């Protein structure tokens, strides 16, 4: 039983991080209709900057107990990159999707060189702090409290985003813009402002996810591409543009991956993409997606 609990906890933790990245991807596509490959780069940027930021605040004697809020703050700080990149993407809003993919993939490659220039080729990690909040143990089951906090943060983001989109005026305007941009513009909505805000929110979700995960892992040059592939599996399963889909897709990918690692380690990747293929065949719009037609 405790073995199953360990496996389940590992899967949910992976899903929590995946959800944060995929939520940004979904938000941007849902409103702006842009498939943003650079979401993986935002994730990597958050991880690298998180390491630097924590090193910086430690110099000022800030308690290690503030690790989690400090990392969230570092992720939020990076929100400033959203508006200039969104400005760049305006050039391809009305062009073919292939232009959008090429431009955002170019951003991925450019970010990779920026990381190398600033942080070097070596992976960067936080050497201490992961276990500062301790570990919850019962019998053979154990999970670092930090992992639980990351899962809680992902749940809070899911609830917060849902409330924001469904219950606030600004959220309604976002959804209206997503439904019909021309109509929203005709009714006086400043769509440019909406797009800049949404893109920044999407970027911040990625950077915060990267910052949150770095105490458990390491920031490396390849993490952007590595993660964006999995995030796309989440999106395909959940449905492009759907926030509930992001949550369901992340849970499915995280748990299937964890189970296959235990039962059939050779099928770790195959198991996920079998589900992706099944969804594409039997429900091409994803579990919670809606047909664009």
């Amino acid at each position, binding site marked *: 039983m405790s073995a199953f609990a360990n496996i389940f906890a590992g899967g949910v933790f992976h899903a929590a991080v995946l959800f944060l990245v995929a939520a940004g991807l979904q938000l941007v596509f849902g409103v702006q209709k842009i498939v943003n490959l650079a979401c993986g780069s935002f994730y990597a940027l958050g991880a690298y900057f998180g390491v630097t930021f924590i090193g910086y605040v430690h110099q000022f004697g800030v308690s290690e107990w503030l690790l989690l809020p400090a990392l969230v703050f570092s992720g939020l700080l990076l929100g400033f990159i959203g508006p200039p990149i969104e400005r760049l993407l305006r050039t391809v809003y009305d062009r073919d999707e292939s232009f959008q993919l090429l431009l955002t993939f170019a951003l991925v490659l450019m970010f990779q060189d920026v990381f190398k220039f600033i942080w070097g*080729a070596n*992976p960067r990690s936080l050497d201490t702090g992961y276990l500062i909040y301790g*570990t919850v143990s019962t019998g053979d089951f154990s999970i670092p409290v930090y992992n639980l906090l990351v899962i809680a943060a992902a749940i809070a983001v899911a609830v917060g985003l849902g409330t924001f989109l469904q219950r606030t005026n600004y959220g309604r305007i976002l959804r209206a813009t997503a439904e019909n941009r021309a109509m929203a513009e005709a009714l006086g909505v400043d769509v440019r402002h909406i797009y800049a805000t949404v893109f920044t929110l999407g970027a911040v979700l990625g950077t915060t996810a990267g910052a949150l995960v770095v105490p*458990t892992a390491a920031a490396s*040059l390849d*993490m952007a591409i590595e993660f964006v592939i999995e995030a796309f599996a989440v999106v395909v399963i959940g449905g492009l543009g759907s926030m509930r889909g992001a949550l369901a897709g992340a849970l499915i990918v995280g748990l299937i991956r964890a189970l296959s690692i235990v039962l059939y380690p050779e099928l770790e*990747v195959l198991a996920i993409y079998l589900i992706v293929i099944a969804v594409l065949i039997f429900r091409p719009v994803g579990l919670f997606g809606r047909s664009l037609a």
Partner: protein
Amino acid sequence: MALSRRRFLASAAAVSALGVFAPAVAQNKPLRIGILAPRSGIAAAPGLNGIRATQWAVDRYNARGGIGGRKVELVIEDESSPKDTIERFSKLVQQEKVDCVQGIISTGVGLALGPVVEEARALTIYWDGTTQDGVDEKIPNPRYLFRSTDNECEAVMSSLLAIKSWKGKFATVAGINPDYSYGRNNMAAFIAILKRFNIDHKVVTEQWPKVGTMDLTSHVAALKAVKPDLIFSSLLFADLPVFMKQAHAAGLTEGTKLVFPAAGWQHTLMKKEFTPEGMLFGHNTLYFANPEASPLAKEFVAWYETTYNDYPEWEADRAYFAVASYKEAVEKAMAAKGGNWPSQDDVIDALVGFSIESLGGKSGWRKDHIAEQTFVQGFTTHKNKYDFVTLGSFETRYATELQKPPGANFWEWIKTAEFNI
């Protein structure tokens, strides 16, 4: 412009002078060594280690007159995909006209480049990457290519030390190894050597994460579920410290015997906070804190620490061995030719069959152009001045104890080899 008699004579004298001194000018041209090493991606850190060690060696040579009296110039190109690296190799040979190419860490790149080296007839010395799919010889009898020690040497040494130290103390074995030929061959070698010594064991799980996987919590959970007595892992990229961190957090490292033959590639990231004492830890061919190291190695480590605020790992030794053995061979061949500059064939012939003191210890080239080097592995300790683990007790073994002989089949050799336990 009319050509005056005086100008004609002056020009003729200049041409004559050029002709007379041409051989001397050629011999005094800088010696050009091309380097192919990764500077980005997952192998960037070892690539930089190798480049820095080569530069250190070359600076020392140049300060003392160079190699065979010629100053040395390095032409550095990236090692990336096999296709791109082959193009850069051709550029080094055809456009840059280098006298020797050195580098290569990736097995895949090394295998693809091998036939191109032979076709180009350009002396090339690999630093690393001599794992072969199935551990069969894929580039038999090369003339121009010199390759590193077999990558399985470290797995063989770890297996021997694990049996020596823990025989009878483990029954269940788990593996977590990178999902490519290196990881698969190392795990298979470990199991084969356990069988060779009739060690009763049961493999309870084998995990094969993709190289660079940064969330290994599910792999850790899978390992924990089967409660192995011993974990064998040849993880060696950035995923290794991540695994240790996550395994420690899950309590997996407590009471489990850990055999990590390639951990030395990430040695400075293996922090005491999450890396236990008593873990079997391989530093391959360079242990930076070896108290028995040569003065040369100690000088290099001190320079590396001062210059980069870091400590070198084994790729530095591989690169140093490549350039130092090349220098030795050139000068040996020159001496045999009465001081005249040797041909490439002379240098190739001179490389075979001698040994030198590399940074990690005795190193040499076999007749089949495979390197023999000195390996270091031992058990981790926290008793040091660093924030990462070093070795408490350790052993050094020369490759002749760990490497299949020329032409042998690796798996058959394991069944019959005279291992020293």
